[in-house]
């Protein structure tokens, strides 16, 4: 079976309806196991206390916030090059999911930052980059909502996604530069991944798997919705024409 079979909307509907329960079930299982493991059965960090348990939400959400944008970028490219409608609709379906993950990463980061650094919000490069990413998601979603015609919207949002990706990377480096420039030698570091011990690592992996699968399940479901919405519009159009 070729991956491009997904490009045919009818085949996509058939395949996704078979795939969706499995992906959703597996995702739920991973999330339940990972989060319960992490919440109830991991020790406290000697430095951060119980707040380390937030890692099981924060890191997977942050990871998927970026990967969701990457997936939208790939889907946009597929739409531009191969003109597969399903691809454009999948990009549209992924955006709100990515935005939600970004917001989760930001909120859990703020809640974690409050006891650790004594402030809800620090203009740390990484936090700031996520804030900018959230703005990009909002612009992308707003663009889809604003354009009436489906193909035009797909084209415009694809161009926006491409240009936005370039500027998102640019912003990331600009923000790094900016913060160092403002407070020299600021010692707020968010590099938790580097000093995570094994006890925290395994449940974290399970949670990451859960978030990846959940993203997949949600995108499949939402793409099915978008395909139906598009077909509904076309059928109503035909009724009007006849």
């Amino acid at each position, binding site marked *: 079976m070729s991956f491009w079979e997904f490009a045919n909307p009818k085949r996509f509907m058939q395949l996704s309806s078979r795939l969706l329960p499995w992906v959703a079930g597996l995702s739920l299982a991973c999330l339940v196991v990972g989060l319960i493991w992490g919440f109830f059965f991991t020790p406290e960090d000697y430095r951060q206390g119980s707040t380390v348990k937030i890692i099981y939400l924060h890191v997977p959400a942050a990871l998927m916030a970026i990967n969701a944008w990457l997936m939208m970028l790939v889907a946009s490219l597929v739409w531009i090059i191969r003109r597969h409608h399903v691809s454009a609709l999948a990009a549209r379906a992924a955006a709100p999911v990515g935005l939600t993950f970004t917001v989760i990463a930001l909120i859990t980061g703020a809640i974690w930052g409050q006891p650790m650094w004594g402030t809800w919000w620090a203009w740390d490069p990484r936090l700031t980059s996520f804030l900018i990413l959230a*703005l*990009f998601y909002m612009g992308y979603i707003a*663009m889809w909502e*604003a354009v009436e015609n489906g193909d035009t919207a797909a084209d415009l949002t694809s161009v926006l996604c491409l240009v936005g990706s370039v*500027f998102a990377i*640019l912003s990331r480096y*600009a*923000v790094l530069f900016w913060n160092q*420039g403002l407070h020299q030698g600021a010692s707020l570091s968010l590099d938790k991944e580097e000093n995570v011990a094994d006890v925290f690592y395994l449940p974290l992996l399970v949670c990451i798997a859960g978030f990846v699968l959940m993203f997949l399940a949600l995108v499949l479901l939402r793409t099915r919705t978008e395909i139906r919405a598009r077909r509904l519009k076309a059928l109503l159009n035909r009724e009007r024409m006849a």
Partner: protein
Amino acid sequence: MIALLRRDLVLAVRAGGGFGLGLAFFLVLSVLVPFGVGPEADVLARIAPGILWIGALLSCLLSLDRIFALDFEDGSLDLLATAPVPLEGVSVVKALAHWLTTGLPLTLLAPGLGVLLNLPPAGFGWLVISLAVGTPALSLIGAFGAALTVGLKRGGLLLSLLVLPLYVPTLIFGAQVATQGAAGLDVGTPLVLLAGISAGTLALMPFAAAAALRINLR
């Protein structure tokens, strides 16, 4: 192309072209800031470069939707698309006209407002240089945003939402040049990066804008 530039400049300067509105906005904004943060001279001196950069950026934003929308509404854009000039060229010229009527005057006005905001003497030169180097990028990015939203009703608000995140790197480096210059520090790195952004947007944004225009004209 030169004809197009000339026409756009004439249109902007003639009555109803909106030239001067952005400048007035910049002036009012800068006057309002001390009311918000208090009249202490040292506070104002510290935030002046950043305030002036944000003011310039917002004033630029005000007139962005006019870049293509007016030509779209009266049909000129259709005619330009069938004319023997590439839409990429049209985008560059339109961005240039926008810069000449907003970015350049803003740059020239900024030192005057710097006096109001108690900008340190060392900062005036760098403020003008940073604006002169950075505002072309604002016009070019803005032309892309305007091309994306040209066919939309109430596109102005969406335009702001799309363009503002794209302005982040330009703002960061531009304000950095102005701030460090005012503090008497070395500005080499941010100035090079700012120039890099302007050059990069000049190379790439016209193509993105032309692509968006072609989609919107269909």
